[in-house]
């Protein structure tokens, strides 16, 4: 089962390495990790997608809390959240296929950010399912390269984390 957690950490050198190291040696499987500063300059936020059963998630959370630099761990399973990631997809686009590709891009409300003789780069934001769906549709044209940022998540409504 996949779980998404947010980890609020001190904005200190080495924090990312510490957390990643913890995951590696405890055998926790990270699918994606996004980290950046927040509205509070001393605090950074990591959004991590983890694969594993329920009890693994409990251990992850408890082991993270043991780190001096970890302030809060939030398990978003069951939370009403806004979840987004950004993808850049470089797709093969010969002139005859170009129209279809542009239509697909428009349907997904994504932008063409690069045009070359044979390729286009599409920039798409959305939740995981949307990005994966776009990727699947473009696959038949031939994806040259792609990069995804990994999920970031905020809980809906006035509930602050």
């Amino acid at each position, binding site marked *: 089962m996949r779980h998404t957690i947010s980890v609020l*950490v*001190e904005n200190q*050198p*080495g924090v990312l*390495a*510490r957390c990643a*190291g*913890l995951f590696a*040696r405890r055998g926790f499987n990270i699918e994606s990790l996004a980290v950046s500063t927040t509205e509070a300059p001393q605090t950074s936020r990591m959004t991590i997608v983890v694969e594993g059963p329920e*009890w693994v998630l*409990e*251990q992850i959370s*408890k*082991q993270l*809390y*043991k*780190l*001096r*630099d*970890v*302030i809060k761990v939030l398990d978003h399973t069951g939370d009403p959240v806004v979840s987004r990631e950004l993808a850049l997809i470089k797709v093969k686009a010969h002139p005859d296929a170009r129209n279809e590709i542009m239509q697909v891009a428009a349907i997904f409300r994504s932008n063409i950010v690069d045009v070359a003789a044979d390729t286009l780069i599409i920039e798409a934001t959305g939740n995981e399912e949307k990005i994966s769906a776009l990727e699947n549709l473009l696959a038949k044209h031939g994806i040259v390269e792609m990069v995804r940022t990994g999920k970031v998540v905020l809980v809906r409504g006035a509930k602050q984390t």
Partner: protein
Amino acid sequence: MMRMTGAQALLEGFKREGVEVIFGYPGGALLPISDALYHEQEIRHILVRHEQAAAHAADGYARATGKVGVCLATSGPGATNLVTGIATAYMDSIPLVAVTGQVVTAAIGRDSFQEADITGITMPITKHNYLVKDVRELPRVIKEAFYIASTGRRGPVLIDLPRDVAQAELDFEYPDKVELRGYQPQAKGHPLQVKKAAALIAGAERPVIIAGGGVVASEAADELAKFAELINTPVTATLMGKGVFPERNGLSLGMPGMHGTAYSNYALNGADVIIAAGMRFDDRVTGKLETFAPNAKFIHIDIDPAEIGKSVPPAVPIVGDVKLVLQALMKRLDQQDHSPWLAQIQEWKERYPLSYKGDGLKPQMIVEEIHKITGGDAIITTEVGQNQMWAAQFYPCQRPRRFLSSGGLGTMGYGFPAAIGAQVAFPDAVVWDIAGDGSIQMNIQELATAVANKLAVKVAILNNCYLGMVRQWQELFFGGRYSCVDVSCGMPNFVTLAEAYGAVGIRVEQEQEVRPALRKAMRVRDRPCLIDFRINREENVMPMVPAGGSIDQMMID
């Protein structure tokens, strides 16, 4: 507020934290600190002969006193030599602050001479570590380091101090308190959980208490004794908890697990309620988890929330300091009586006592004789392997902080420097290291440290000219194919080796020589003493639960 260098600030910070002794070894990156130590009157620096010994000595000092142990090493190889000792302390939750010199800040990350990324290397084996790049951070870092090492689940913290930072000047001001958003150890147990536990205990018919290192850290031996008597429940203490419950008390079951007493394992197997206090269900204790204590409900008391539910699913988890939790529990419990259960246990004790048989020089007998001559009250350290198990089995302890052994990591070479650390802490105590011929050679150079500091540590080498525990496994599980364990070739003459360092050396080959040798050793008061006991080569540690086996299926002999 005084103007001083980083090196001086380090020593000043140590003083504010009550540090009296540091164990260290110098080097280029440490020069500013060594220079500051030159004029230092209050803090004693014990020069070891290998950095690993500095870490183990600080560890032994910490286990014996309950204070934070401090060790000091230079950059690069000095720092990496501390790694085994830091990992040892990490696995056993021992409060340690390790300070390493580092190359100058401009040289970091450039493969400089004697540079090692020690903060990277020790990340998985420290509670936290620091690389101090700005000397003004140093007082806060020191305060935090000692705070983190000595609170919650104790453990090692490392401070990496570049040479130019140690030379830079600051206006020294020591913070009053430390407040960490991400580190707030929980002390009191949740009252609702305590209530549930009390109810479970009140209804138990065959309860057992397992007490571990957490009871030592919590200084809760008194509470444990009162608690056990109140609920009339037998107590088994893990290797880390040895001495936390007087082993001569009728309720004591000795040690559980792989080489524990048969009766403690039978008791755990037959229990309906197990109260686990400050212990973590290590695999040496539980054997195969699937068949461990199949009929028992667990009450798990531990200061580390991550331990609860990690190995065993508790019916009642209680996160908190053992001392406080036991106090709260006792308020909710009345005097109990479990005579029928205790009678069953007594029957097991009589049928399956710890024993040994046969002729020749027996290691178990030697440990018993050491127990006799020391009145059971010495500080005992051990190395690792058969020597460690025989010491745990045949030296019953009445008090905590008297049996110092590397349990979690199982580090050979731990015992001798740890004994040195304990002797430094208690100059008038009798300190014995129970060693094997393999282990003792791993930090043998510390004979020099002991001689130089007039430390009368006594080492009982249970010498079978084998790496005994591995040989035992090869005998029992690998068809007797002894591979890479015969160390008889090149075995030194320990008597002349000891004398080469200015220590006392004694050789014992027969039973009747044991007592006179021990008496002679006890009379040596100003230098270390090695006794080379030539024991039976193929003596085995029994009982034994084979790896992956169930604790109720022991090999008894």
